[in-house]
């Protein structure tokens, strides 16, 4: 939860910015830069640009972990089920059941990803949980062949380091195992060291993993002020609406959408001080914030029409 930075010097209009605020601003800009490195523009055949955000290595690792847990849950559950049923079985049919289970294990291991990624959502349950999906790098169709390729390659990215560490634990040639482990970790850590966050499998298959979370359309906060028809109760002056910029508007949107009454109260207090607003009788924090949000957005949009984007409150012109 981001908070509105404390007003620099009370109500002073001077461009003197406190050290703390400047540091925060710089950190914010750096974060925006970092985020923008993960954005790829996809031009649709209609000529519109869609921004695709690549999944970070961490998100992909998280999705993979969830998938591994699900796979193991399936494998162990069926194994336990088999043991349970085995009591009633003769020795021979028990062996056949075990054989079937072994083949089942192979399919869960290798085809779990393929079946889910060939589907409409192009995502395994783990990816779905984190709002990720697989997409073709050239923006075209994700073909079944690509899905096969990217998942068969997983065998060396995960299987190889695993086998080498097993070799290190049980085998005699410790140095060989260590060397192998280091070598195979090149594949495992590959996504961290390229700008598209691709696995080797992605590279071979021509795919990448993007963030495609489902967003909900929430109500427009400005509807409150619009429907009031701009009642005179909260008439903010231009100077008052010019106190903040787009960044603060977005923070205010977050505050209004998802914070506790306590935080809303603090924020309202701070804004009142900053813009020199005197609290009127019967004025609630929520009503004040919503009205100010409406007024600020209106003002910023007006300025935008003239090509003037006020990035944040430090952006004085």
């Amino acid at each position, binding site marked *: 939860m981001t908070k509105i930075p404390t007003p620099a010097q009370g109500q002073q209009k001077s461009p003197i910015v406190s050290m703390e605020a400047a540091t925060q601003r710089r950190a914010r800009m750096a974060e925006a830069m970092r985020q923008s490195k993960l954005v790829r523009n996809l031009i649709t055949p209609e000529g519109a640009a869609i921004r695709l955000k690549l999944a970070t290595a961490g998100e992909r690792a998280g999705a993979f972990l969830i998938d591994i847990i699900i796979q193991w849950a399936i494998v162990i559950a069926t194994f336990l089920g088999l043991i349970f049923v085995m009591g009633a079985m003769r020795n021979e049919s028990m062996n056949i059941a075990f054989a079937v289970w072994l083949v089942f294990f*192979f399919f869960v291991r*290798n085809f779990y990803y393929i079946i889910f990624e060939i589907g409409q959502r192009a995502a395994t349950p783990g990816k779905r949980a984190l709002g990720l999906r697989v997409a073709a790098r050239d923006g075209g169709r994700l073909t*079944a*062949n*690509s899905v096969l390729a990217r998942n068969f390659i997983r065998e060396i990215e995960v299987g190889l380091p695993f086998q080498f560490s097993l070799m290190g634990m049980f085998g005699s040639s410790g140095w060989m195992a260590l060397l192998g482990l280091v070598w195979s970790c090149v594949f495992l850590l590959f996504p961290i060291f390229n700008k598209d966050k691709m696995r080797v499998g992605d590279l071979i298959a021509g795919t990448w993993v993007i963030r495609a979370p489902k967003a909900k*359309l929430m109500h427009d906060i400005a509807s409150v002020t619009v429907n009031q028809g*701009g009642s005179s109760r909260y008439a903010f002056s231009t100077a008052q609406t010019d106190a903040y910029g787009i960044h603060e508007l977005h923070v205010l949107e977050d505050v209004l959408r998802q914070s506790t009454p306590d935080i809303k109260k603090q924020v309202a207090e701070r804004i009142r001080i900053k813009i020199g607003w005197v609290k009127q009788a019967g004025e609630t924090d929520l009503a004040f914030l919503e009205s100010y949000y409406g007024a600020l957005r209106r003002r910023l949009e007006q300025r935008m029409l003239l090509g003037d984007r006020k990035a944040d409150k430090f952006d004085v012109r």
Partner: protein
Amino acid sequence: MSRDLLKSYRFREERQADWQKLDLILTRAENGGVKRLSDEEMLALPRLYRQAVSSLSVARSISLDQNVISYLESLCTRAYFFVYGARTTIGERIMVFLRKDWPASVRAATLPTLLSALFFFGGWALAFFLCVQDMDWFWTFHGQNFFDGRNPDATVEYLRSTIYTDGYGEGELSAFSSTLFNNNAQIALFTFALGFAFGIPTAWLLVYNGVMIGSLYAVFWDKGLGYEFTGWLAIHGVTEIFAIILAGAAGFIIGGAVAFPGNRTRLASARAAGQQAATIAMGCVVMLIAAAILEGFGRQLINSDGTRYLIAAATGVLWTAYFYLPRRERQE
């Protein structure tokens, strides 16, 4: 202050019903597949999609409502992938794979297949001739206590008993063969996947597997069981070895594409080769399933050498015909 000043508000009010309609259709399609959409919805979809995309570009330039922009971003991304995404069901896909893609990509890989076979049989022949001349080589290749006593020190009677099913129960052997399938399929995928390191590990794996079989072959040959052992091996081995060689070929395709990208970038070259190779590797898994069935049931139930040879020959002919017989392109 009039309503008109908040342009983004009016903009949203006019269009959000359509956004939500698109959202609803997409959600339904994602959950239940395309079939659950009515004709009307399918017709409306392209229009709604184009409208959402244009809304997004407008919203980016006039709106400051984060929620609207991120909603439209997500909606357009989902719609884009749906409109331009794969439309085939898994069933259709499997049919296309079996009828066209698989044999076509195997046929297109004749040269890598020959290369792969050369490595495999080269390893085999090398090990065989070395071992036949001097059985000590067997221990070099296998180390001690390997192959449950099927080694140069075993008696002819013991070796013969491993070829025919006398003492084994049926079930035990089918478990054994599914273990082998797991192992082989994993090795096949490995052979394919390692190809991308210029094909070097793939070549090594092929030679290694050839050496393993070749040296074992020499043990039986040495004891005068060559004919019987060939039948025992061939009934499933024709399929299995073919699969391993094809997996090697798939690895070489990728390795070759990475090593010699030609005019393309290494990345583009690897990508183009990767998809063909993956189809072959997928096919290898199918072949190994067939081999496991032949091994688990065929080999255990059939103890006659002649029948074993017959089945082996039949599988050989069938696979060759399936892959390499020229076929007419079907007009679709």
